[in-house]
């Protein structure tokens, strides 16, 4: 790295390759119909999805695809306030009706997977926690579980650490869904709801701050356990939350759930069927809103979710209202789980006592040469992870967060890939928006609850 010019961000490496002609990038933007290939047009019209005859017949209700001079292509975003960040949608409109839609993403791409290859497994948490910044604990959990599986210590994590992880990820689900309720309300004009949702979320974040020192981006769940034990008085704080939030949720019900305007805006909007959701790889509340009872916590249990009692909330219509109701009720289910965790929280270590993975306690460093060496090695070189590759998926508030790590035996991942739930869910938008009104687009985008940090990574 000799000169500043060469070390600038993303400086392209001179790249000569026989296939350079083959890999020249085309344009990302949505093109007029006349310039769109038949395959791509099919995709944008959603007709590649596996549909039953009845569903295909319903498509007959949709407006006919007209000539170009009757339509216009407009941009929604990337600076649109209801796109939750920097999502840009290109919409083809005929009057008020959306005919085609193409999400254009990448405005928040910061190469976090490339960065992840430079960081040790101990540092990796700081990186992945920033991807889906509304559910940082879930990111850290997926990353830590993948690393532990590669290390072969996934069965040796102390009980207290496991239950603490569950406590934090359930509280995280609550805070994330509360924020969804806030933004969903705001997008649809229930501006009061925005204030209430943020207020309740802040109560949860205040607890996170007490535990981890930070409101977001905690880097608290680490390979081998957690960074620290729960602080004194944590139980009272959680109990306070459990007392406070149920009555606030009742207020949300009064404000929105039963309210005719709210129902009118959401019911029957952005409908997706189970087959389409599965074909598009949608996950989490979107899949559950179609009536598919798929929740990794129940169906492929990790941590100790098989020992707690909770319900998987499913919808039946696959519309924006179902997705709203599912998230609202998932907050209640999470509180049910948190109550059980409070009863069963075991005592003991909060991290594995494996000298090769866990830094020694501060006091040991003064008295033991070995502890000092381990400490030094862990924080300079990091611990080595055996060769292999692994995929671990967990249920985040938005769907499955997966972590794929390929290790070459060095202290940094050879390749780390995060399966981002928002990335997949965004791909449902063209289908859910088709044939709807442009005013409903806001409701549909909001109901997928995208986090652009997760989409773009």
């Amino acid at each position, binding site marked *: *790295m000799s000169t*500043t010019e060469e*070390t*600038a*961000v*993303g*400086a*392209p*490496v001179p*790249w000569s*390759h*026989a*296939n350079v002609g*083959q*890999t020249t*990038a*085309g*344009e*990302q933007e949505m093109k007029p119909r006349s310039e769109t*290939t038949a*395959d*791509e047009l099919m*995709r944008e019209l959603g007709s*590649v999805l596996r549909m039953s005859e009845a569903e295909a017949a319903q498509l007959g209700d949709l407006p006919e695809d007209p000539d170009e001079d009757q339509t216009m292509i407009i941009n929604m975003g990337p600076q649109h306030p209801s796109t939750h960040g920097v999502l840009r949608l290109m919409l083809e409109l005929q009057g008020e009706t959306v005919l085609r839609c193409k999400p254009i*993403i*990448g405005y928040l*791409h910061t190469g976090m*997977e*490339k*960065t992840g290859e430079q960081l040790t497994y101990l540092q990796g948490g700081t990186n992945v926690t920033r991807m889906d910044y509304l559910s940082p604990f879930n990111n850290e959990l997926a990353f830590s579980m993948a690393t532990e*599986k*590669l290390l072969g210590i996934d069965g040796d994590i102390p009980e207290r650490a496991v239950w603490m992880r569950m406590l934090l990820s359930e509280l995280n689900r609550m805070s994330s869904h509360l924020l969804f309720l806030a933004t969903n309300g705001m997008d649809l004009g229930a501006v009061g709801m925005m204030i209430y949702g943020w207020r309740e979320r802040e109560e949860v974040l205040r607890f996170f701050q007490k535990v981890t020192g930070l409101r977001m981006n905690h880097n608290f769940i680490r390979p081998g356990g957690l960074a620290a034990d729960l602080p004194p008085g944590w139980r009272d704080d959680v109990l306070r939350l459990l007392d406070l939030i149920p009555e606030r949720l009742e207020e949300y019900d009064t404000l929105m759930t039963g309210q005719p305007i709210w129902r009118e805006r959401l019911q029957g909007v952005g409908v997706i069927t189970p087959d389409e959701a*599965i*074909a*598009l*790889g*949608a996950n989490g509340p979107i899949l559950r809103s179609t009536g598919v009872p*798929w929740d990794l916590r129940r*169906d*492929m249990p990790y941590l100790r979710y098989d020992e707690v009692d909770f319900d998987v909330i499913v919808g039946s219509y696959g519309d924006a209202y179902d997705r709203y109701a599912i998230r609202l009720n998932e907050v209640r289910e999470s509180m049910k789980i948190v109550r059980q965790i409070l009863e069963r929280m075991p005592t003991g270590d909060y991290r594995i006592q494996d000298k090769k993975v866990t830094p020694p306690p501060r006091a040991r460093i003064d008295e033991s040469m070995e502890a000092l060496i381990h400490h030094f090695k862990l924080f300079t070189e990091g611990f080595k992870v055996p*060769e*292999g*590759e*692994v*995929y671990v*998926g967990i249920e985040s508030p938005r769907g*499955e967060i*997966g972590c*794929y790590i*390929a290790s*070459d035996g060095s202290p940094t991942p*050879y*390749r780390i*890939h995060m*399966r981002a739930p928002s*990335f*997949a869910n*965004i*791909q449902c938008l063209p289908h859910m928006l088709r044939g709807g009104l442009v005013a409903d687009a806001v409701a549909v985008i909001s109901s997928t609850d995208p986090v652009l940090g997760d989409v*773009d990574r």
Partner: protein
Amino acid sequence: MSETDTDTAAPEAPDTDDAAETTPTVHGCVAGESCGQTVVFPTREQYLDLVKALADDGYTMVIDLCGVDYLEYFDRPLPDGIEPERFEVVVNLLDIAHRRRVRIRVQVPEDEPTIPTLFDLHPGAEAYERETYDMFGIVFTDHPDMTRILMPEDWIGHPLRKDYAVGKIPVQFKGAHA
């Protein structure tokens, strides 16, 4: 993974009764195991047929698709009979009905980085394939919209390749000597 032994995706021994150790296969493709997870290693020719056969078995959802550039780690452990290539395309499939997963790793050579698209089978793989193309320059043939997805459309190079340098901003700390 399902608990039944009749799991179609679990590596099963071929019918031959040879005394020599035989490698397990899934739908005629070499299969292995990594950290307790089933991994199948089809060739590029077998890839589409394998995904099709697995979809018939119930693996109806592409949960993840990504690339790996093994330029600096070419001698990775692979089952017998699999020639290592520079690139790999890794596909994670999910079977919702039977609650099981399977992973597919396809070797993609450097001098011809192409592989068929899964678009016809799994429309949801479309965006992942664009991402893999964007990051690694692996072309998915017959993909309806083979364009960059995360990087700007006029970007040169494919950032997650190992021969692509990491971008750095020089940071001037107070009192530090450059």
